[in-house]
């Protein structure tokens, strides 16, 4: 008797469970779709989205990139290449800088490796091209007129060449110690 009741209960529960599922999906049939139709509607992407790469400038309008090769070294697909050179004032720069966006996987490691915050990823992801060679971006394609995500940062105020300003003039840097006066 008990077993029979249990069987009935099991069958009832199974049927109720099924009905519940079917009811849930049926209700969803009349709900408004949540789809965002892409080319017509473009969602505002977060500032830190990782897509097309840019080379930024510091607040003074100078190129931030010092051609240290860190981004090119850390790049897992080796899509960044450059040449380093030195300016008359002792500051390093890249005469040419090339990113092959056909190979870039937008991992953002270059951005993390960059000591001067020069290379940055932007939310602009619509980079599709019919010809793969047009995806190779040269320095003039990459260079922008602003500071990207860090407008006020200037690497040379914190570190770097001292030819112009002299030792101990960087922000948060102690004055150089006079060895002669520091004797016990």
């Amino acid at each position, binding site marked *: 008797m008990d077993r029979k009741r249990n069987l009935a209960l099991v069958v009832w529960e199974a049927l109720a469970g099924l009905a519940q599922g079917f009811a849930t999906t049926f209700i969803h049939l009349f709900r408004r*779709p949540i789809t965002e139709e892409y080319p017509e509607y473009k969602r505002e992407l977060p500032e830190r989205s990782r897509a097309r790469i840019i080379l930024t400038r510091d607040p003074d309008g100078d190129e931030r990139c010092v051609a240290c090769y860190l981004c090119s070294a850390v790049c897992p697909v080796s899509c960044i290449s450059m040449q380093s050179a030195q300016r008359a004032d002792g500051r390093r720069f890249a005469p040419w800088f090339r990113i092959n966006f056909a190979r870039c996987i937008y991992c953002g490691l270059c951005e993390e490796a960059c000591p001067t915050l020069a290379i940055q990823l932007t939310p602009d992801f619509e980079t599709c091209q019919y010809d793969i060679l047009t995806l190779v971006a040269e320095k003039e394609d990459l260079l922008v007129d602003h500071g990207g995500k860090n407008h006020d940062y200037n690497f040379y105020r914190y570190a770097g060449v001292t030819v112009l300003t002299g030792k101990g003039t960087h922000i948060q840097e102690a004055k150089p110690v006079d060895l002669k006066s520091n004797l016990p």
Partner: protein
Amino acid sequence: MSIWIIGFVILLVKLGIVLLGLLLLAAYLVYAERKLLARLQIRLGPNRAGPFGLLQPLADAVKLLTKEDVVPNQADRLIFLFAPAVVAATALLIFAVVPFGRDWVIGGRQIPMVVADLNVGLLYVLGLSSIGVYGVALGGWASNSKYALLGGIRGAAQMISYELSLGLALVPVVMLAGSFSMVDIVAAQSRYPFLLVQPLSFIIFFTSAVAETKRIPFDLPEAENELVAGYHTEYSGMRFGLFFLGEYVTMTVLGSLVAVFFLGGWRGPLLPPLVWFSIKVLAVVFVMIWMRGTLPRLRYDQLMHLGWKLLVPLALLNIVITGGVMLWLSA
């Protein structure tokens, strides 16, 4: 002689209309399924090709026809090329015995709204759906791929198991109608559809029919998260299209079989027969799509358990009860 020719022409016209209608219905069933499934998941579904995406089936057909027809290395070439045709052809042939309207009378001639009224129509249906298994099993085997082979084996096992309950569920219908002919079965439901007297039979038949079409929750032969695409993994282009077509035609055909056996076929008040028939078929198909949007896939042992330990005994019990009640009523 002239009577023979007229009959032949009428047959050809009927064949053409049925074939065209069935293929068109199958194509738009794909669209309807994608659209409905999308709405069940609060998405939009295809809406790019033409207004409301209505040209999507056309775009799909063009795509499939222009794709390369790849035959895998060391595949059993002949069987590989032949298998999709078996699936599509058997699915289309089943519809030959399905009556879809009242007899037309034109110029004193009676034109039955069925391609062929076989006196063993029901057995013909079961036989053809058994042949359809060959398409799945051979296609999977000939592909020379593990995934396809596993899909083919599962397909064969599943379809043979569920064929049994499919056939047994129809025995009470035959007992009630007293005939294997589909036209007679529809005629026997002139007062009430068999659904009212055979609800258990209906549930068993419908479940088995869904298993026969290899649809969720019985889509183990093509379980895409285990077997890539199951038995049609290696197929491309229009051969894959034929498998796809076969599946959707089978869906329509089994919908119409449910309508014929349990819902009274083309019979219904007020509306013309063809409209009633379409409504019934589409209602069954809608439930199939709804099921796909709701249920998860069964495990293989659960599938076999359900088939052999539940549906077959229930169907046998149903036959015995139906026979008993019929004897009691006639006595």
